[in-house]
């Protein structure tokens, strides 16, 4: 059964005269126990999509979708309170930059205890305090922090970035979510720490059957950890499929370019040779091209690209391009 299923989700930025379409009809669905990667460069709307799923976007943004199902329930039609109740119970999110997301004025221990809900504690009210403390320590152990007393007493600035990220994960795990959304969990981290965080997430996925939506800007760095991957560009859906489909036979020119530019992925290129790179840069929200937004940068663009392409499905490998690369693999 699908955990959640989103069809044609659009997110608009409400303006004075006209609305800007920041995310343009993106579909995303996840099964239980799946690790899905969501890949896109900065400004591709991937964080916006994640925020729309947990419903923290404010009035400036207008979210509309053909279908927004969470375990068979249509979320957009529910009243806000009910929706919030479902989301807080089942979904948790790790935000970018753990240092700035933790409260600098309170200790880690207090913040962790705050994240533990009363419904998770079983004892009478005089036992709760102790139970809460124990639960917080247990959470720290779960994410691989052994010195719990030292960690609980310290403030966020006293810990390293990787430690803060672990604390954030511990907080997210407090309510035992079914879906964990990790928004660039390893940005600006050293490779050894990156590996540790990813291994932790992978073990949670296997032991708890927790689904993970892994958001990243670098296709090369997450392929090892994901089952399926969705690629976005500038708010539009590009390609989705299993990791090996995307990695070995990308159908969209953009995915192809991402893979070619990733130095980890193709280590057989001669050193100091010119790398494949798309010309230009990512369009800004005020000046979006019409039709396929990759158009002006795309090596395969033709006249038809001024109208947005429809999503084509080849055995679960979805691609949104008029001139996709499917035939070039024969």
């Amino acid at each position, binding site marked *: 059964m699908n955990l959640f299923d989103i069809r044609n989700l659009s997110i608009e930025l409400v303006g004075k005269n006209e609305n800007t379409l920041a995310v343009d009809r993106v579909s995303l669905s996840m099964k239980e126990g799946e690790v899905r990667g969501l890949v896109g460069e900065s400004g591709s709307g991937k964080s916006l999509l994640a925020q729309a799923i947990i419903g923290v976007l404010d009035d400036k943004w207008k979210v509309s979708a053909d279908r927004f199902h969470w375990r068979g329930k249509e979320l957009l039609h529910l009243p806000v309170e009910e929706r919030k109740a479902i989301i807080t119970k089942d979904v948790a999110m790790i935000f970018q930059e753990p240092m700035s997301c933790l409260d600098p004025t309170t200790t880690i221990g207090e913040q962790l205890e705050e994240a533990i809900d009363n419904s998770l504690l079983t004892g009478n009210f005089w036992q709760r305090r102790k139970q809460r403390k124990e639960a917080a320590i247990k959470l720290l152990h779960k994410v691989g922090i052994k010195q719990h007393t030292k960690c609980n007493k310290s403030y966020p600035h006293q810990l390293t970035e990787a430690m803060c990220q672990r604390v954030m994960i511990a907080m997210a795990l407090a309510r035992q979510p079914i879906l964990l959304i990790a928004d660039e969990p390893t940005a600006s981290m050293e490779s050894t720490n*990156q590996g540790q965080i990813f291994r932790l997430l992978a073990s949670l996925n296997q032991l708890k059957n927790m689904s993970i939506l892994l958001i990243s800007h670098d296709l*090369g760095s997450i392929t090892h950890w994901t089952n399926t991957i969705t690629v976005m560009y500038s708010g539009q859906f590009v390609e989705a499929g299993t990791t090996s489909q995307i990695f070995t036979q990308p159908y969209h020119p953009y995915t192809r370019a991402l893979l070619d530019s990733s130095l980890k992925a193709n280590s057989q290129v001669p050193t100091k040779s010119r790398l494949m790179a798309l010309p230009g840069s990512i369009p800004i929200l005020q000046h979006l091209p019409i039709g396929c937004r990759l158009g002006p940068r795309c090596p395969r663009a033709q006249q038809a690209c001024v109208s947005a392409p429809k999503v084509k499905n080849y055995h679960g490998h979805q691609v949104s391009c008029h001139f996709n690369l499917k035939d070039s693999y024969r």
Partner: protein
Amino acid sequence: MSALLEVSELSKTYTVRNHWFQRKAIVALEPVSFTLDAKKTLAIVGEMGSGKSTLAKLLVGAEKPTSGKIKLNGQGLATGNFKQRCQHVRMIFQDSSTTLNPSLTIGQLLDEPLKLNTALNELERSQLISATLLKVGLLAEHMYFYPHMFSGGQKQRIALARAIILSPQIVILDEALASLDPSLRSQMINLLLDLQQQMGLAFVLISHDLGIVRHFSDNVLVLCKGQIVESGDTNTVLKNPKHKYTRKLIMNQQLQIAGKL
């Protein structure tokens, strides 16, 4: 033939006041020696706290070395002599947006090193600025723009323009490619390689991404806790790592994908 840059027994020790009268010495960099030729790239890899950035600061002259000598073209570089050093050794930082002054236009930003280091008049300076902007793939009109009007990749290009405007011999890239998006990163790598060919630049690349190191550099130094544990030709070191620490670094990054497919 003497090398472009010769570093011998360079080290750095910080002293921290531990107690009232006790002083504690923290060794950030043990004595290191290496050489760098023109048109070559030296990569420095290592984990956090391995002394990579300390080495960069020493080379560029932002810190005073505890011991050792840096020689450029056989001439010794003195620590306080910025006039000599700024012309030849330039640096690009990781986060380019914070290194650009938001209240100055790009033209004014690029004008500053010229005013301080050259005897050019105003017309010559503005001509040189527009030529440099063209060289890094921007337009001459961008002179009149402010830093906030640029995207991240363009800001990194401006930082590069500021580095090469004095036609230096060595450019130090301190994680300069880490925070860029993949497609912009390959554009930037192409640009750097082109400039290396055209201007005969030597790069000192500080990075933790071994993919970039493999593609970009000729020689590599592996630093661990301030010590050089391995050095040599990039390909030989990465293909055939001798030291345990180097092997660990490579394991962490590159075999991830190889294991999957």
